[in-house]
């Protein structure tokens, strides 16, 4: 019952499972302002979808959840459009490089390994840092001191760079180089790992650019729409790895979950939100690390030779 055939993945999946997966990822996406791809891509692979199709389809699904997420954030005036534009400019360049890099690694048969190692390193480092910081913030709040990590007037090395732009919504006057580099890294990750890159972008903007947390979440959701759209088109054109039927099912679940996620996120305090996100990120990293270290059930793998390879 409810089995649906996927024309590009050439397999049959359960409609309810895919709707549920989309909804769960959409909920987290709305709550934390992340695209949720770092959960979606591994879960798609666990359900038997091949890794390249999971990456491309995941990116396409994130377009849908981030559109509704960004609209909800825009209504709350949480988007810094000028900052978003700078991030997108860097993101598109990173996306092109990432798609080409993935193509080369797939042909060498090392895409899976490099993807997993990058995931473990990134998620482990960022999750650990975020968890440590948010625990400190929660303790400070319990001790009765102000919980905010943002201290206006405090400067770091970022403020010494040239090409300064004024970002009125974020109340910042900083160099455009750090946002460009952050956008570039995020674009690379989106194309390469099928993630929105929110888990890199959100902490980088909070800690490096010292933007207010609520505006960080709104702006990153806004940027994610454009970068994931570019990545979707690039993967469809170069790798033929996009399954629109699968994306549609995930999107239908995702937009519903996303709305509830935004509301749940409003009820939680900033540092609690960050602690939860940190725990989630660490759990995914641990799972991926186990898969790399434990002896695989199957030592052999077979993959079709890519056309034109």
């Amino acid at each position: 019952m409810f089995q649906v055939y996927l024309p590009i993945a050439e397999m049959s999946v359960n409609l309810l499972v895919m709707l549920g997966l989309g909804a769960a990822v959409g909920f987290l996406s709305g709550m934390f302002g992340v695209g949720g791809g770092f959960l979606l891509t591994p879960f798609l692979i666990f359900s038997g979808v091949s890794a390249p199709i999971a990456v491309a389809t995941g990116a396409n699904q994130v377009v849908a959840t981030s559109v509704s997420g960004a609209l909800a954030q825009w209504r709350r005036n949480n988007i810094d459009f000028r900052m978003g534009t700078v991030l997108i400019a860097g993101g598109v360049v990173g996306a092109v490089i990432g798609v080409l890099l993935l193509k080369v690694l797939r042909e060498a048969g090392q895409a899976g390994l490099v993807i997993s190692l990058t995931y473990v390193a990134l998620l482990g480092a960022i999750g650990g840092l975020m968890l440590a910081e948010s625990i400190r913030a929660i303790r400070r709040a319990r001790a009765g001191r102000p919980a905010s990590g943002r201290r206006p007037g405090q400067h770091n090395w970022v403020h010494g760079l040239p090409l300064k732009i004024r970002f009125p919504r974020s109340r910042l006057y900083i160099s455009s180089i750090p946002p460009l580099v952050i956008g570039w890294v995020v674009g690379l990750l989106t194309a390469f790992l099928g993630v929105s890159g929110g888990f890199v972008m959100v902490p980088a903007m909070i800690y490096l650019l010292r933007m207010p947390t609520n505006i960080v979440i709104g702006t990153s959701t806004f940027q994610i729409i454009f970068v994931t759209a570019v990545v979707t088109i690039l993967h469809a054109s170069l790798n033929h790895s996009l399954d629109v039927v699968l994306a549609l099912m995930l999107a239908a679940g995702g937009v519903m979950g996303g709305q509830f996620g935004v509301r749940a996120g409003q009820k939680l305090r900033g540092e609690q939100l960050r602690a939860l996100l940190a725990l989630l990120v660490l759990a995914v990293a641990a799972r991926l690390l186990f898969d790399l270290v434990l002896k695989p059930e199957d030592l052999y793998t077979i993959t079709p030779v890519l056309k034109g390879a």
Partner: protein
Amino acid sequence: MRTLLTLVAILLGLAMATAHAAGPPPSDEVVSDISTREIAIKSNFAGIEILIFGSIDFSARPAPETGAYDVVVVIRAPGQAIVARRKQRMAGIWVNGPGVTYPDVPGFYAVLSTRPLRAITSEETLKSLGVGLGNLDFGRSSTNDANEQSFRSAVIDLKERQMLFQEDDGGVAFIGRSLFRTSVDLPANVPIGRYTADVYLFRDGQAISENHSTLKVNKVGFEQAVYLLAFRHSFIYGLIAVVIAVIAGLIGWVAFRRE
């Protein structure tokens, strides 16, 4: 004149006699067919069972011989190139090692028979017909190298687990003396293309007759349109996918907004 006519009659008779002697001895023939000639993959496709049936035609001989008849049915999809890799431990993690490329691995291969293949005929006959999972060459000449052999058996093993390679020793059943039937489950992940169904009739270890039919597996309707668009106009396909995603996002926002 009379002698000439007689000569012609004798010559004709001789010619007929020789023609008859040069032809094959009366033999049993196998005829077969598939329950469907075309499989349409639609959105509800979750695999399909096909039926292959046939009969042994004894009409060429006055009285059928008694003897052990065996039927072997082979369903085969067009070949595709695949790479097999083995993971090895490096610095504590499992890493893909160098790959072995097989240029021509059937996308689907099922062999069904009345008895175990080795009991039906000799290994040489099976090899020359390309019947049996062990007798597929995958477009790469096999060596006896243990490493090479382990890769081959891993390919077969993985394909068997995906239900794309099947071997069923007792899959073909006789109904009465001449009718036989068998069924094959095509899983949802079958590749598209023109499949062949080869039916071999064996008696006393000899392949005495064979019959071939084809089966087309195609995507149709929406599934075909999506497939063609994705491969022929991939940029437009990507754009459409993004537009759909944006619309889905908008619908979600409008439907759930409570402000």
